[in-house]
């Protein structure tokens, strides 16, 4: 055995607190180590070339790189040693940066710790065995979860490239948040004019199936071979018959809150969210339906010309087999009412959210595009916008910037002027203006100079009703004095939050999410649209707050990653899987009990006895069976019990 150890300086990232050169000398005394060197940047081209040269010239059979986290560069170095003819699994990383140099100050102690980390890695690599991946067939169909603008973009890109795509959308129509917007910044073009043609494209595309009013219930399998159970929620309307004529909606006597219009209006118990809905199909909100609540009515059933109403409809489940999954579940509006009592907590009628105002501005919205006060339906003369409600505010647990509010507030301020006239006073309370996109800064400037919107830097401390007005009390921090504005209408630039149910979906998919419910990308810079679960990708605002241009751009990026994955006919599976030493298996079948993936199976031997056998391409390498097997005859390649014990001994006895 000939082990080479390469110790990285990482510029000064490691070398400032760890004596990389000294470590190279010490590591040379470790058993089986025949070559050591310290390198300025091991991951650089010359650094990697140095490793390959040492493998060739010194006949190295194992390599340890002591540098950054394996999550950063394990793949890089595995490829590097493989190119030099070594099996990539005869390589091990010692993380002396994230786990040592960056968290310590004392150079002597940090160097000692780094030495032990290296010893543990050497001990681990010593028992490493060459591993070889398996190949599995790839299913080239794709599931897109969420039919907003990002999901539609991904679906269209993939479908255009020839892949079969299924869009699962939990509402009755695709379109997502963008469908609820009036205009888009910085161009002030009509949101629907951009989006609805894309929705129609998706609906008519021969490679796209839209499953609206459906949710992902269960996901099994692995990259290239997912099996997804989809729940089709009962709409109480047979969508194969419904023609979207809306007769039922017109005649329905019962009303319920209107999610699509952000609660600004009511809708009928049987409804179609908006005229351009795709698919344009009716659904009954049973909570509000008289038939379901009181057992009488059935008006819709009587008026339906297509005989589509089905009061007995049940949820159904369908299964789809796909090779990749794109999560594009978007975002929700921050529920400001719960968090901002100082703004009335929702009890002042003329204080509304940005999305409500968006619906008010919209010509097909509940007010027909007419801006008025909620309290008395009069046109407002003074309109105040308050930014960063539910963003950049640690007091409400939202430290992040929602990234779209500055821009949509400017847009809405401009639209206010055009809807209500120049004589309407418009104020915007802001902390900072973030206008980093193309044409964004110019757009803000236009709002200020061309449209005369008053930007006041400062937070609003309190909103209260007084004499028919909403009193806006705040601080103008530039002028340094209190201001109090009697407003007719106050619009809160409510921030974005992760979509409802996002953590549950993440658990179903086995992907990570952050404390706010946004899904985590595999690496913010290197793998920004991948998740840590192979074959599952992200697009749009489900990952972090995004505006439309960014969502669409990312969606196309995601589509290209999916295409890259599915361009292969076969996929290599990780060889770090469980394997049974059948000569020692006692056939207690505990492994079969505990495996979440059904990877172990009973295999009959020639002598008639049965032993456990792990199907390599099904095994995901978690090792639950390994910890469960009483005779320890299952070992997890790459993480054998012996290698763990060796590491323990190095850390404790050395």
């Amino acid at each position, binding site marked *: 055995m000939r082990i080479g150890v390469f110790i990285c300086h990482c510029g000064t990232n490691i070398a400032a607190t760890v004596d990389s050169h000294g470590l190279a000398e010490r590591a040379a005394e470790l058993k089986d180590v025949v070559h050591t060197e310290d390198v300025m940047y091991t991951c650089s081209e010359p650094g990697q070339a140095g490793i390959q040269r040492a493998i060739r010239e010194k006949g190295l059979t194992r390599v340890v790189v002591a540098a950054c986290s394996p999550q950063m560069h394990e793949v890089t170095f595995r490829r590097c040693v493989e190119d030099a003819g070594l099996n990539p699994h005869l390589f091990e990383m010692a993380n002396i940066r994230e786990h040592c140099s960056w968290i310590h100050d004392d150079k002597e102690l940090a160097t000692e710790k780094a030495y032990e980390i290296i010893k543990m890695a050497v001990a681990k690599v010593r028992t490493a065995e060459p591993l070889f991946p398996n190949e599995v067939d790839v299913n080239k169909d794709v599931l897109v979860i969420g039919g907003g603008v990002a999901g539609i973009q991904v679906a269209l890109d993939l479908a255009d490239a020839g892949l079969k795509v299924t869009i699962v959308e939990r509402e009755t129509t695709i379109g997502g948040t963008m469908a609820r917007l009036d205009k888009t910044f910085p161009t002030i073009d009509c949101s629907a004019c951009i989006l609805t043609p894309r929705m129609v494209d998706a609906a008519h595309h021969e490679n796209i199936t839209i499953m609206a009013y459906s949710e992902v219930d269960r996901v099994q399998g692995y990259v290239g071979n997912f099996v997804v159970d989809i729940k089709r929620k009962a709409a109480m309307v047979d969508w194969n018959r419904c023609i979207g004529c809306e007769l039922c909606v017109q005649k329905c006597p019962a009303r319920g809150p209107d999610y699509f219009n952000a609660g600004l209006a009511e809708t009928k118990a049987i409804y179609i969210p908006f005229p351009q809905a795709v698919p344009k199909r009716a659904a009954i909100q049973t909570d509000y339906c008289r038939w379901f609540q009181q057992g009488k009515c059935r008006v819709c059933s009587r008026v339906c010309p297509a005989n589509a109403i089905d009061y007995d409809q049940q949820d159904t489940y369908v299964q789809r087999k796909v090779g990749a999954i794109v999560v594009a579940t978007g975002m929700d509006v921050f529920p400001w009412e719960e968090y901002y009592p100082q703004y009335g907590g929702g009890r002042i009628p003329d204080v509304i959210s940005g999305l409500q105002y968006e619906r008010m501005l919209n010509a097909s919205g509940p007010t027909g595009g007419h801006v008025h006060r909620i309290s008395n339906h009069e046109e407002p003369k003074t309109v105040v916008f308050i930014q960063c409600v539910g963003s950049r505010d640690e007091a409400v647990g939202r430290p992040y910037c929602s990234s779209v509010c500055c821009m949509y507030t400017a847009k809405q301020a401009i639209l206010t002027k055009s809807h209500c006239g120049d004589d309407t006073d418009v104020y915007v309370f802001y902390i900072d203006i973030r206008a980093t996109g193309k044409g964004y800064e110019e757009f803000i400037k236009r709002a200020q100079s061309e449209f005369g919107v008053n930007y006041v830097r400062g937070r609003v401390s309190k909103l209260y009703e007084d004499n028919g007005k909403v009193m806006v009390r705040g601080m103008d921090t530039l002028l340094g004095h209190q201001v109090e504005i009697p407003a007719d209408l106050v619009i809160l630039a409510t921030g974005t939050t992760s979509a409802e149910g996002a953590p549950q979906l993440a658990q179903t998919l086995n992907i990570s999410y952050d404390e706010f419910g946004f899904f985590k990308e595999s690496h913010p810079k290197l793998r920004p649209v991948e998740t840590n679960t192979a074959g599952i990708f992200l697009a749009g605002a489900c990952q972090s707050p995004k505006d439309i241009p960014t969502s669409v751009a990312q969606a196309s990026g995601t589509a290209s990653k999916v295409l890259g994955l599915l361009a292969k006919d076969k996929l290599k599976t990780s060889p770090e899987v469980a394997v049974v030493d059948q000569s020692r*298996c*006692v056939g*207690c079948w*505990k492994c079969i009990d505990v495996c979440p993936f059904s990877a172990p199976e009973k295999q009959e031997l020639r002598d008639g006895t049965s032993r456990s056998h792990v199907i390599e391409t099904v095994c995901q390498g978690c090792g639950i069976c390994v910890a469960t097997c*009483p*005779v*320890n005859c299952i070992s997890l390649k790459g993480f054998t*019990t*012996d290698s763990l014990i060796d590491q323990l001994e190095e850390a404790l006895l050395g």
Partner: protein
Amino acid sequence: MSGAEIARQDRIRELARQALTEGKVDYFIGWKAGHVPSEVIPAFVRNVDECDMLLWNPLCHHNLTTFLKRKMPDPPDARIGVCVKGCDSRTLVALLQETLVDKERLYVVGVPCDGIIDRRRLEKAFSDEVIDIAFQGEQVVVTTRGGETKELAYEELLLEQCASCDFPNPRYYDDLAGELLPQPEGPPRFPGLEEYEALSAEEKDRVLADAFATCIRCFACIHVCPVCYCWDQCVNRSRRPALVGQKVAAKENLMFQMVHMFHVAGRCPSCGACDRSCPVEIPLYLLHRKMNKELFEMLGFQAGLNVEDKPVFQTFNIDDALGEQ
């Protein structure tokens, strides 16, 4: 011996005879007298005319379920009749839960049990060899080789676990030898731990270090255990992985026992077979009974109660409320 005990013994013989006559089993496992009357040993009866040597009395401590586990039946596909007490039946249930014994090849005679006497404690009361133990009502008459005779109260000689038995009746059986006994009420009891539990960490460490320094790694505790069935493949012997050091020294010996304990966790009902079999009398119950106490407090779980249950570590509950921080 009480009338009930005699009735049970008669019934065991009768059921064994029946099973053998009908060809239901190839052999029947019960208890019989050893080389001295004070000794009761496992009996393997193949012929009908041997059935009369089967015994039932408070010396029948052996958990016969151990002879059902892997590699024990001879021939391997034998159809076996077996007697089980309440505690024994729980180990059988644990094996059945894992489908590691074939129900179809098994004929189980359940024996309600009033409690087994602690022969070890009894013997320590004499310097001479105890060769006869007779039961007369509530009294136990003990005779030594030298001819000394003493009468002792049955109640006071019971094994600690029997004195507070929660399951005097078998949990699983095909036929019953005798009437069922009243089922004790209340939560399960885990006797004999209080004194040890009250010790400081340092004192416990001392007790265990002393106890396990005497362990000779004979594997009696493991091989006698009905739910420890890895036989030749026991990881305690394995060099790859080398989970347990092969040196016979206190640390390694305790680790050895930890392997046993963690591997039977969720399936061990504290039948006490390991404890009774240890040739150097290491108080194994301190570990195994404690483990069961903790499992009960942790998840309300008791091993080997119902065939359809899953052993506690082969399943989970999303709502497990445990003590992680």
